[in-house]
């Protein structure tokens, strides 16, 4: 019995999500709903029964594959991925197409698989599973924009996968080990792995893929997309590159990039997409700091972030679903008829800003604390400025422009019941984790010696945030929404590379044409010559020089000339 039970628990939890994803297609009606809601819960149960350490290994070629390795941080990430799939499924099941739901579940399965991957080969396989099915989720947006953005998204992630694979191959060849274990970026192999992971984390210089693709997906698809890819990258960084100093700078850049681009943006969901980059920047920076406090902060922040970011995307998704509009300039004043969506959106916005009593406060401040403990004064100050900036670009900007601002005259209905229920679950979680952070702290990778609420800290952050709010309303005239997009590094390949390719193609065509003209001219001349000397066709008015019937006398004379020439040559 115990043996059987133990065997049962050795099935990688991701398998249950994959089975769920496969069954969603053929199932119909209530059965599909049941599968949709049950699959993540079953997966969750198995996640909590994954033992610490490598459960077992399987021989594959010359390698020992470890499909199931448990630890606190792995279970924590897998838990939030499964929870996200459940609440996302609840949010989407009545509105989304079955193939979107199925792909989203396969995508979640990839994230959960990566969480428990004990070796680099398993990690890579699940990594690619995510890349494939997240692309399908983008395509489920169904518009020409979604199709094009999906192709760009797929190219970026397949490229990232190849770079990751190159790094993994290098590590296997040079160290002989395929274990997932901490390393530093000190040689080509580890740099390739780091680069591959950072592409998924939307790090510079390729951050643009995220804001390019996520907002083109469907109202439900963007909820799933917001959760898995970047946070799986965060887990991979925690497992492989804790304390890698280069991550501090990259993280700080992402934090500022997210704020500036979100401030310039008009598309509701693109604002939120940029703020993913911003929030992931906090986590990347924390992993770079690499102390126990910092890694706890990164893990806790990722957990809280998935919840409030999905909540924000849900709120925005309801607006898109009910109004059909995507832009701040098209909506406004929606609080009148969408109170639930507005309140849930505001709770998400307060959480992302790290307002006291929300999950953002109890998790993000750990990262600042880690920076302070290490006496990283610049990092600490930039993170504090960024916290103010988050309130500015997401905390107030999102709810203000969508639900207040001006009366757009739109009077859409509030969220459908399932979307509303999903939003309420995540709103409650945001507040519960903010009020009782110990619920989360006990599951962090290292023992937590951190007091989230001290009067001084609360006052400091309240000053910081409320005066950011003042800045927002005083500077509103400077933040007038314009119907524009903002250029990013993807301009280099979407425009410059495209133009160079077109120009190169034209040049090559011109060169090719010139060559073929020259060749055909030469061929024509050869043909004319051949016809002149050898031609014998009866259709020709005059046979070729050598095929003509010459009079005997002329021939005899030519023979005499040739013989004379021969004799002359012979004697001299």
């Amino acid at each position, binding site marked *: 019995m115990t043996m059987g039970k133990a065997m049962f628990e050795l099935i990688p939890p991701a398998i249950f999500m994959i089975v769920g994803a496969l069954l969603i297609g053929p199932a119909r009606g209530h059965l599909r709903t049941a599968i949709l809601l049950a699959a993540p819960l079953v997966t969750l149960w198995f996640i909590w029964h994954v033992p610490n350490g490598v459960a077992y290994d399987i021989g594959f070629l010359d390698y020992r594959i470890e499909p199931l390795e448990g630890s606190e941080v792995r279970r924590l990430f897998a838990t939030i991925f499964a929870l996200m799939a459940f609440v996302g499924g609840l949010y989407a099941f009545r509105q989304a197409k079955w193939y979107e739901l199925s792909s989203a579940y396969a995508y979640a399965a990839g994230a959960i698989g990566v969480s428990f991957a004990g070796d680099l080969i398993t990690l890579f396989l699940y990594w690619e599973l995510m890349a494939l099915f997240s692309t399908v989720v983008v395509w489920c947006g169904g518009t020409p*924009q979604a199709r094009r953005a999906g192709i760009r998204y797929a190219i970026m992630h397949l490229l990232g996968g190849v770079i990751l694979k190159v790094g993994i191959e290098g590590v296997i060849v040079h160290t002989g080990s395929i274990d997932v274990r901490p390393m530093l970026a000190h040689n080509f192999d580890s740099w390739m792995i780091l680069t591959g992971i950072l592409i998924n984390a939307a790090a510079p210089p390729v951050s643009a893929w995220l804001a390019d693709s996520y907002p083109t997906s469907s109202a439900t698809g963007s909820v799933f997309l917001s959760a898995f890819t970047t946070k799986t990258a965060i887990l991979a960084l925690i497992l492989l590159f804790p304390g890698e100093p280069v991550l501090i700078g990259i993280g700080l850049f992402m934090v500022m990039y997210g704020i500036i681009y979100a401030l*310039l943006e008009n598309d509701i969901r693109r604002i939120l997409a940029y703020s993913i980059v911003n929030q992931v920047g906090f986590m990347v920076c924390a992993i770079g700091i690499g102390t126990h406090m910092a890694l706890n902060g990164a893990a806790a922040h990722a957990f809280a972030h998935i919840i409030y970011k999905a909540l924000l995307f849900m709120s925005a998704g309801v607006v898109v679903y009910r109004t059909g509009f995507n832009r701040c300039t098209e909506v406004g004043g929606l609080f009148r008829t969408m109170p639930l969506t507005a309140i849930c959106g505001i709770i998400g916005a307060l959480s992302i800003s790290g307002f006291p009593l929300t999950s953002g406060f109890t998790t993000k401040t750990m990262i600042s604390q880690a920076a302070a403990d290490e006496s990283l004064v610049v990092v600490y100050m930039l993170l504090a400025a960024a916290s103010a900036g988050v309130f500015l670009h997401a905390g107030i900007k999102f709810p203000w422009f969508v639900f207040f601002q001006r009366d757009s005259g739109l009077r859409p209905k509030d969220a459908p019941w399932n979307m509303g229920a999903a939003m309420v679950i995540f709103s409650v979680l945001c507040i519960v984790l903010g009020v009782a952070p110990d619920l989360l702290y006990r599951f962090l990778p290292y023992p937590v010696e951190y007091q989230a609420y001290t009067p001084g800290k609360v006052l400091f952050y309240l000053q910081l945030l409320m*005066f950011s*709010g003042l*800045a927002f309303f005083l*500077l509103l005239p*400077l933040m007038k929404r314009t119907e524009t997009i*903002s*250029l990013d590094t993807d301009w280099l390949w979407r425009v410059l590379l495209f133009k160079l390719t077109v120009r190169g193609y034209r040049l090559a065509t011109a060169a090719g044409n010139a060559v073929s003209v020259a060749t055909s001219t030469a061929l024509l001349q050869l043909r004319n010559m051949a016809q002149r000397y050898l031609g014998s066709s009866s259709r020709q008015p005059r046979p070729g020089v050598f095929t003509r019937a010459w009079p005997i006398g002329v021939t005899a004379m030519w023979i005499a000339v040739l013989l004379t020439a021969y004799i002359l040559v012979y004697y001299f």
Partner: protein
Amino acid sequence: MNEPQRPDHWLALPATIKLLWRIFIVVLVVLVLAQAFIYIKGYFGVDGWFGFGAVFGFLSCLAMVLVAKVLGYVLKRPEDYYDDGKSDV
């Protein structure tokens, strides 16, 4: 339009907005003055100064909005910038 003009939501009335602004300003003042009673531990000296959080929060936001504004002149393009049919086969 023949319907009688219904009063707007109470939250959108000018009187409410005026009241909210007043409450907001009172909260801001209280938050700064509270530092006289609540000790804020400064990790680097400067962040323990009186009203540092308030000033730092306001100035960082001002800086970020201005930087975004300036960058906007360089980076902003019409929405159809990429979708003029050239980029699709």
